[in-house]
């Protein structure tokens, strides 16, 4: 469960101060599937970074599963990301020199897991995203959709309760993008993972069951979505 209260984020850019978040409060329950939507510069990425423990707010409180995390140290945040949170990025962010399974096992390395177990779990995660036959391929031997699946497998390998996806379909054609979005839906429905999607694409956002509309560093609308066209 995510509880944020009055989150403010300011950046110093030379002499001027940019206020990316101007007091955001929200609650996202366990197992929810939410989309954060808004034009670029609306603060949605900043919000995701803070909620994903990659960044700290300038002020405000953030509780993750009832524990305050807004003032944790870098290493404590790293541990939270490692154990509780998975990320999927627009540009996949895979290590180009590593085959798929090595990319997927990376979070387990920092969990301190032994080598054999890591490989087993990494392969299991890759099979879950239906890429079982691509385990030993390097990222540049994979298509965009396949790369994003590898990235999702990496996000899921530690079995986190929270999955953040930052424009996950931005670099994919619409058909592949659709498949990826379907995958998120399944993960949310079948595995009970809380999914938070950041996007500026209304079509993508419609797949979530709740849309938080952002503008100029504030949430301007909290919209509940009726399931569209049933669950595919």
């Amino acid at each position, binding site marked *: 469960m995510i509880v944020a209260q009055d989150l403010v984020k300011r950046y110093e850019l030379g002499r001027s101060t940019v206020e990316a978040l101007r007091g955001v409060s929200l609650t996202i329950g366990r197992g929810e599937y939410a989309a954060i939507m808004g034009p670029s510069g609306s603060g949605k990425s900043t919000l995701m970074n803070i909620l994903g423990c*990659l960044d700290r707010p300038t002020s405000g409180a953030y509780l993750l599963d009832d524990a305050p995390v807004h003032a944790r140290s870098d*290493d404590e945040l*790293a541990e939270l990301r490692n154990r509780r949170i998975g990320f999927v990025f627009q540009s996949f962010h895979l290590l180009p020199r590593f085959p798929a399974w090595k990319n997927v096992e990376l979070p387990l390395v920092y969990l301190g897991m032994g080598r054999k177990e890591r490989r087993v779990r990494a392969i299991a995660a890759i099979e879950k995203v239906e890429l079982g036959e691509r385990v030993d391929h390097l990222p540049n031997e994979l298509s965009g959709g396949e790369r994003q699946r590898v990235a999702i497998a990496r996000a899921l390998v*530690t079995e986190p309760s929270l999955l953040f996806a930052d424009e996950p379909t931005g670099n994919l054609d619409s058909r592949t993008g659709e498949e990826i979005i379907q995958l998120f839906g399944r993960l949310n429905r079948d595995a009970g993972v809380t999914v938070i999607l950041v996007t500026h694409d209304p079509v993508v956002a419609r797949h979530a069951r709740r849309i938080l509309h952002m503008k100029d560093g504030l949430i301007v609308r909290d919209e509940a979505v009726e399931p569209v066209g049933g669950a595919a």
Partner: protein
Amino acid sequence: MNFLESIALSLEALAVNRFRSVLTMLGIIIGVCSVILLVSIGEGAKAYVVTQFNSLGTNVIIVTPGKTQTSGGPPIISSTVHPLTVSDAKVLSERCPRLALVAPVVFGLSSVKYLNRARNSPILGTTNEFGDIRNLHVEVGSFIPKAQDYSEKRVCVLGRTVKKELFGEDNPLGKMVSIGGSKFRVIGVMKKKGRSLGLDLDELVFVPVRAAQQLYSTEALLEILMNVPRESDLKPAQEEVREVLQQRHEGEEDFTVHDQGDMLGILQTLLTALTYALGGIAAISLLVGGIGIMNIMLVSVHERTREIGIRKAVGAKRRHILAQFIIESVVLSSLGGLIGVGLGVGIGETIAAFVEDFPIQVSAWTVGMAFCFSFLVGVFFGVYPARRASLLDPIEALRFE
């Protein structure tokens, strides 16, 4: 991630830029190699000096006329210096029970002639004991007579080179040679000894001490050589010698007593200092190599900013990133160190095997030190780039193109 895995990971990373990694290692390779070679030459020189000294007899005490002060050079207010004489030597051998052998030494340079062949040779006037003290022995015939018989006999013993030049393959025993105009009968030829401490021992011609004194019209000796049976006798024997001679020289200490160990010690100290200096100079190249490593690690951290961001995003802590890059830098420098060790030892052993008399001694200690140094260079110069990597902000690192 365990230690071996970390090393494998860094090797993979280094293999991506193979050429660059090798160039970077080259600095360390050259550094380690030169440290090993230069220190080995220094150590070799030290060992060489020791064997040279010991080949000229052990536990040797030498008395020379005149007092050498710590400042060096002759005394400023010079009272009359009593020369050392043959009777001084005689008295020493009678009154110092610790001394095993005593040999007076006179030294000069004369032309040695046989028939129409002649050469200039250093002439050493002494007694039979000299041979035993200095570990010099005849090959054929006999050495000059014993000390009891401070003889004026005109006999001589030729060094190998002198014999060869004057007699060729002929037997010189019993033949008469002329030394400085006087006739001497050849009674022996020395074994080959070679050069030692800058003196070609095969060029020497030995004659009885009295004969040499007559030849050079002097009573004064160059030095008196003595030896003692055990090393522990060296210092007490020197005291005895000092006392006896002081008495004979009207209470004046106008002579210098020292043992070969003193000289050896001084030389060794000198060579040790030299070895350190050489090693230090070579170590500078290792430091330069270390700067090269730091440079390339900084480049590497910059190039891999995104990788660092990804690792941090999935949960790498600061120490994980720090360790990854320090290990990479240490692997780079140690690999260079290892190759440098191989090269240094290889070159050193090759020189030792093929170049005769070249003083080089590759010791495990030197090799170990050089390698450890390369390892430490990797740690030292890896810390800063690794720290920079570990402090990167994950968001900015992920945004890096």
